[in-house]
């Protein structure tokens, strides 16, 4: 077990001696861990919590109206909205999970960062944002209400609120479990501390509090994680040295054979790559149905862009985010690949990471799972202080993920459920109070979900699958509503409903009869990820078809009523001319060029 004992440090003791002892006592409830934190590391973590609470209290007086609490006053600059937009998605589960996938599958995992994100982010900024922004909606269900009426909006609001809060609980549990494995912290301690901190800064600061902390988290993640690939590349002898060492390890049978450094060459057949995916699934399923569904209609991320201070900022925000998203594989995928050649056991032999099931089946064997590759790399290179920074980045990632879910839940609950169904005509302060209480209630339900998942692990898979059921149909409804004037309220409602039922039905079909995979995912060799992609594609197609057919039998709304909502019926406000380097189109084309360059480089 590659545990690195940290030295007792005179300097660190001076800095944090007073604080370290009680905290360490509290944390000592946990089990044996991957890393041992020095007092300096604990001080780094504690300072982060102090900063988070400071921000929450500072913003309390700036979140008095509903527009301030739920939409951050629509005052965010393009940079803040853009970093928050990309940061809301950059949770620690994702960082650790995809680093593990890179160790397992190689650079194929980068598809989720590039083709699975960039085209959708640019489409949101350049094509969809004007409609979201001009109609001044508070949420994605709010847009559906304006476009299709209350039916679609209520379906979408309930499904979003329900799933968002469940996901928050799953995140909370996952964080507690990671802290237990990496640091040996007690599960209850992690859940309580993170919940109190998140509840405090979101209930006090609203969306602005969540956004500020997401930007802070973004800086921490880069500050804490960037050192790992830099030092890893130095140790491996650069990119060419890494490739040569991977080839050598494959030749001697130390790691499974495969193409770890190319993204498209093994996509011709399902059975040619370890992920069991095909290029059609990657492009149409991941690159369109899932990615566009997530990045353009999931209110968790769209809410950040809606808080921008102008249409230009709102369009620029996803573009700024796209550049950082393209860079994330450097701190996630690259450490996973480096883990294949640099991680060693105590005796100097190459460490082999395995699946979670094997680790659980062999307790005490000193095995580590794929998902632990990032913490293992942190422990390998980071001395006291730097290790604390890396761990703080992981904690910040988990907390901002929870905060993102809770702040989005609070807005959808208040605007799309409470206001239309329970109390239509209350004063503005009342809705702010409802939002604050919804935040606290959301955290409490999340805690309940976390303990539910803790008592029955299988639930976690179902909760994550449930979330995917709603993404593609929502995309279908929003796209048809935004780009087809003829789409009717009945079409939107039935399309959303049948698309969701299609997704649920296909999932259940494969669960009951695994041989159905050859129909759902077009190949018996397809694996889980490929199944997700094709299921999303089927569900999106059904949504499109149902909206189209039902709308043909209904009476469309007059064009005048569609102003601000639909392409061709909306006058997009003219923007003042700016130099090319401030123009969103210039940066969008540059992002496309970089994106294509990456695909060619790692073809």
């Amino acid at each position, binding site marked *: 077990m590659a545990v*690195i*004992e*940290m*030295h007792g*440090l*005179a*300097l*660190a003791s001076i*800095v944090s001696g007073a604080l370290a002892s009680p905290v360490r006592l509290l944390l000592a409830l946990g089990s044996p861990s991957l890393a041992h934190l020095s007092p*300096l590391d604990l*001080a*780094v973590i504690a*300072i*982060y919590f102090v*900063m988070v609470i*400071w*921000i929450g209290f*500072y913003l309390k007086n*700036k979140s008095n109206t509903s527009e301030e609490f739920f939409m951050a006053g629509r005052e965010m*600059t*393009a*940079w*803040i909205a853009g970093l928050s937009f990309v940061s809301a998605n950059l949770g620690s589960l994702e960082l650790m999970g995809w680093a593990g996938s890179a160790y397992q599958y190689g650079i194929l995992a980068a598809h989720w960062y590039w083709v699975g994100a960039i085209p959708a982010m640019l489409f949101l900024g350049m094509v969809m944002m004007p409609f979201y922004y001009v109609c001044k909606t508070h949420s994605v269900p709010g847009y559906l209400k304006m476009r299709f009426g209350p039916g679609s909006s209520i379906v979408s609001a309930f499904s979003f609120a329900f799933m968002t809060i469940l996901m928050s609980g799953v995140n909370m549990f996952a964080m507690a479990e990671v802290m237990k494995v990496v640091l040996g912290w007690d599960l209850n301690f992690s859940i309580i501390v993170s919940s109190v901190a998140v509840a405090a800064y979101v209930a006090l600061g609203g969306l602005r509090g969540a*956004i*500020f902390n997401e*930007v*802070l988290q973004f*800086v*921490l993640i880069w*500050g804490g994680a960037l*050192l790992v690939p830099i*030092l890893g590349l*130095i*140790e491996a002898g650069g990119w060419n040295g890494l490739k040569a060492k991977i080839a050598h390890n494959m030749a001697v049978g130390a790691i499974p054979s495969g193409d770890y450094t190319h993204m498209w060459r093994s996509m011709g057949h399902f059975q040619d790559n370890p992920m069991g995916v095909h290029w059609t699934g990657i492009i149409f399923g991941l690159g369109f149905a899932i990615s566009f569904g997530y990045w353009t209609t999931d209110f968790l991320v769209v809410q950040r862009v809606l808080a921008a201070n102008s249409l230009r900022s709102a369009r*620029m925000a996803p573009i*700024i985010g796209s550049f950082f998203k393209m860079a994330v594989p450097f701190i996630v995928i690259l450490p996973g690949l480096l883990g294949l050649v*640099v991680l060693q056991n105590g005796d100097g032999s190459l460490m082999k990471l395995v699946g979670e099931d094997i680790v659980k089946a062999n307790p005490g064997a000193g095995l580590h799972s794929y998902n632990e590759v990032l913490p293992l790399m942190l*422990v*390998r*290179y*980071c*001395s*006291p*202080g*730097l290790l604390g*920074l890396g761990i703080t980045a992981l904690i910040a990632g988990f907390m901002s993920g929870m905060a993102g879910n809770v702040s989005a839940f609070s807005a959808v609950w208040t605007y799309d459920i409470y206001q239309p169904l329970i109390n239509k005509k209350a004063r503005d302060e009342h809705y702010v109070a409802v939002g604050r209480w919804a935040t606290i209630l959301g955290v409490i339900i999340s805690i309940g979900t976390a303990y539910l998942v803790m008592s029955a692990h299988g639930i976690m898979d179902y909760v994550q699958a449930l979330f995917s059921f709603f993404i593609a149909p929502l995309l279908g409804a929003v796209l048809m509503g935004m780009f087809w004037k003829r789409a009717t309220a009945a079409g939107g409602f039935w399309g959303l409903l049948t698309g969701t039922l299609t997704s649920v039905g296909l999932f259940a079909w494969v669960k009951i009869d695994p041989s159905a995979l050859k129909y759902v995912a077009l190949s018996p060799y397809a694996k889980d990820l490929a199944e997700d992609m094709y299921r999303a594609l089927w569900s999106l197609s059904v949504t499109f078809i149902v909206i189209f057919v039902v709308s043909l039998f209904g009476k469309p709304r007059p064009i005048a009523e569609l102003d601000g909502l639909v392409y061709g019926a909306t006058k997009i406000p003219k923007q003042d001319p700016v130099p090319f*380097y*401030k123009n969103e189109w210039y*940066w969008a084309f540059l992002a496309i060029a970089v994106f294509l360059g990456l695909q060619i480089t790692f073809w």
Partner: protein
Amino acid sequence: MTANQSIPSDEISIWFFIGVLLTIYGALILGYGIWELITGNLANVVLAKLHAPVWWGAMMLVLGLLYGIRFRPGKA
């Protein structure tokens, strides 16, 4: 693209909070790195001889000071 933003002079910008955090972290990590350099008591990590805490901490400190000063409250 620029990170500049115009904020009322009585408000604290997020960039200021980031500057403060980076300054504190940079000072702590650089301080530890210098202590390590002077005493030769290196941490038991790979590539410790590169003294990452010194240059990484210094970089964070400089960035933190730049942001902290540039976006300090009261500066219009």
